[in-house]
């Protein structure tokens, strides 16, 4: 039985689930089955220590805990909106952990898991969703760009950044994140052209989470997304996005190739958005609950836990400790969000330009005077 058959097998028995989006062999790279069984792959072997495995588990679990807390905070009105990563933890943690410190990541608006691996303070992400700023972290210091809301725009940024790396003679790479829907944007396709034309050290990491809000893949492509790459002359790989080891291995290989001057790669991480598009969304309008049930059996965290347990690499105390750490994290985040100060009104004006203009300075002065008028 191939890895893929094993992977799909667990889905078949779910009553009522049509599980319409399962890949067919031999396309999917998988190193850890949904049941937690390790597989070998001829092109993508990986050697992970027990420590590393446990720390991957920890990342996955904490990122999910953060996500759950953020969703709760949104429900309570503390965040304006939240874009949940539920179900995509392995794709994001795997890709993020493949980065070296000198690499640069270009996220969309959902890569909280990558942010985590870049040591971005979750509160700096949540302040964006609260409406206090547009992301509180330092994108250059963390080498994690600010979130980009306009679908696909960051793919060109990543490519340009990679062209800069080339000119600097830096042995680093850029990692651009995008969604399945984003592949339809002209700019994303231009990024593929630029990347191949200039052999730029950039990797495109597409999380195919089955939906662009309500729209399934049939509206974006009639061939699997990783195959798009070949038409532009770059390698395309499809990886089980719910398998953190496979994602890590595939992304590491692609980044290494980019750093070594072998040019760009397009990775399709086959995964599922287990939550709503955002807290404003109502997925019951466009998909069956049974679909989610089917995907629960492919949960990205459960399989790592199963593997760690079964192989004796972690004991119940370890899992309990991670749980406890998650609760602490959640408490810290909750407290942090509740305690967030509102930004000063003058921030509207202060960063529009590096060199403030006289007319804007005047608007700012009038703004200050007007609001002082109310106070006095």
């Amino acid at each position, binding site marked *: 039985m191939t890895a893929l058959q094993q992977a799909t097998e667990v889905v078949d028995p779910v009553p009522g689930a049509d599980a319409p989006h399962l890949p067919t062999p031999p396309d999917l790279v998988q190193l850890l089955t949904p049941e937690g069984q390790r597989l070998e792959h001829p092109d993508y072997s990986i050697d992970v220590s027990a420590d590393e495995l446990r720390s991957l588990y920890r990342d996955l679990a904490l990122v999910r805990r953060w996500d759950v807390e953020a969703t709760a905070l949104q429900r309570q009105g503390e965040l304006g909106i939240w874009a949940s990563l539920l179900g995509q933890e392995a794709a994001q943690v795997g890709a993020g952990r493949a980065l070296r410190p000198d690499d640069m990541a270009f996220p969309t608006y959902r890569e909280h898991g990558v942010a985590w691996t870049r040591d971005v303070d979750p509160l700096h992400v949540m302040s964006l969703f609260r409406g206090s700023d547009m992301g509180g972290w330092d994108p250059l210091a963390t080498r994690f760009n600010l979130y980009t*809301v306009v679908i696909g725009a960051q793919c060109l940024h990543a490519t340009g950044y990679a062209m800069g790396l080339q000119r600097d003679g830096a042995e680093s790479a850029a990692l651009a994140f995008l969604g399945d829907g984003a592949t339809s944007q002209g700019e994303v396709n231009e990024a593929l052209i630029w990347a191949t034309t200039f052999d730029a050290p950039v990797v495109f990491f597409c999380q195919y989470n089955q939906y662009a809000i309500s729209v399934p893949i049939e509206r974006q492509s009639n061939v699997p997304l990783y195959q798009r790459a070949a038409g532009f002359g770059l390698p395309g790989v499809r990886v089980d996005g719910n398998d953190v080891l496979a994602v890590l291995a595939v992304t590491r290989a692609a980044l290494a190739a980019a750093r070594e001057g072998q040019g760009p790669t397009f990775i399709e991480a086959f995964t599922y958005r287990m939550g709503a598009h955002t807290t404003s969304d109502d997925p019951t309008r466009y998909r069956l609950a049974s679909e989610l049930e089917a995907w629960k059996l492919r949960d990205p965290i459960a399989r790592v836990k199963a593997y760690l347990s079964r192989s004796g690499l972690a004991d119940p105390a370890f899992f309990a400790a991670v749980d406890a750490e998650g609760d602490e994290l959640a408490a810290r985040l909750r407290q942090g969000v509740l305690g967030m100060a509102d930004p000063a009104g003058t921030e*509207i004006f202060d960063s529009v330009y590096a060199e403030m203009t006289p007319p804007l300075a005047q608007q700012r002065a009038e703004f200050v005077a007007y609001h002082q008028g109310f106070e006095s």
Partner: protein
Amino acid sequence: MSTETLSLGKALNLGLRRAMEDDPKVVLMGEDIGRLGGVFRITDGLQKDFGEDRVVDTPLAEAGILGTAVGLAMRGYRPVCEIQFDGFVFPAYNQLVTQVAKIHARSRGKLPMPIVVRIPFGGGIGAVEHHSESPEAYFAHTAGLKVVAVSNPVDAYWGIQQAIAAPDPVVFLEPKRRYWEKASVDRDATPGPLFASRVVRGGDDVTVLAYGPMVKTVLQAAEAAAEEGRSLEVVDLRTLSPLDLEPVYDSVRRTGRCVVVHEAPLTLGLGAEIAARVTETCFHSLEAPVLRVGGYDTPYPPSKLEEEYLPDLDRVLDAVDRSLAF
């Protein structure tokens, strides 16, 4: 009796439905407008009733939406495109400005271009970046487009139908934060013309102009001003291109004072054009310069700051005071 109380969003939904019933060539296109009914549910139920060929969930690419609409229009269809939020119209900008706006002129009238581009616009809903912008001046500066902004359920119901029936491309701006505001709509009435402004409150001291979401704000300001003995005449501009300023000139000739209010950044916002025209036309009647209340010349801020960014009742009254003090 066909009079009922409708929200602005529901009025649009019913207006679209009626337009689709009236003309089989009307095709709706956009992201998530089909099964989901649009993120604001403006197209709710329409795909179910009219099918996937007439209510098209498109790929995620705005240039594609507008560009294929051009081809459909050439083939005799009347595409109605939804742009999900104001800030996402820019990928379609090339098609809109270089194609949709220019094809009628390019072909000296031989190619019809009856495309409607629906855009929920403006702020005040506590959203993240790009979901609260007011790009109308870009369109109004573009010859070949017509631009309207509705402010209430009645205009929404009729306006969307009139825009679809119009033979020219119309950018149809919907004040998203007013989607849930209700009014009584008589669906048997005979609507007034689409490309016309309207005096929505009579007054003598200052003429105040607004459109879309700011009409309500200005009407509230007029109410407050009245309590202080100041009488504001309020004009709902409704059409931003072409501008219909005759009623404004008439008003300003009486009041001698004029204030224009919009959410868009001040510089080169609609207020600039209106100030220039009103001043040129009513020069000798003006007792004060036309004053403008708008967003600041900055990107739309994080939502915790939007109340301070957006014109509100107080800022309108402040401008009225300044006008009267001239």
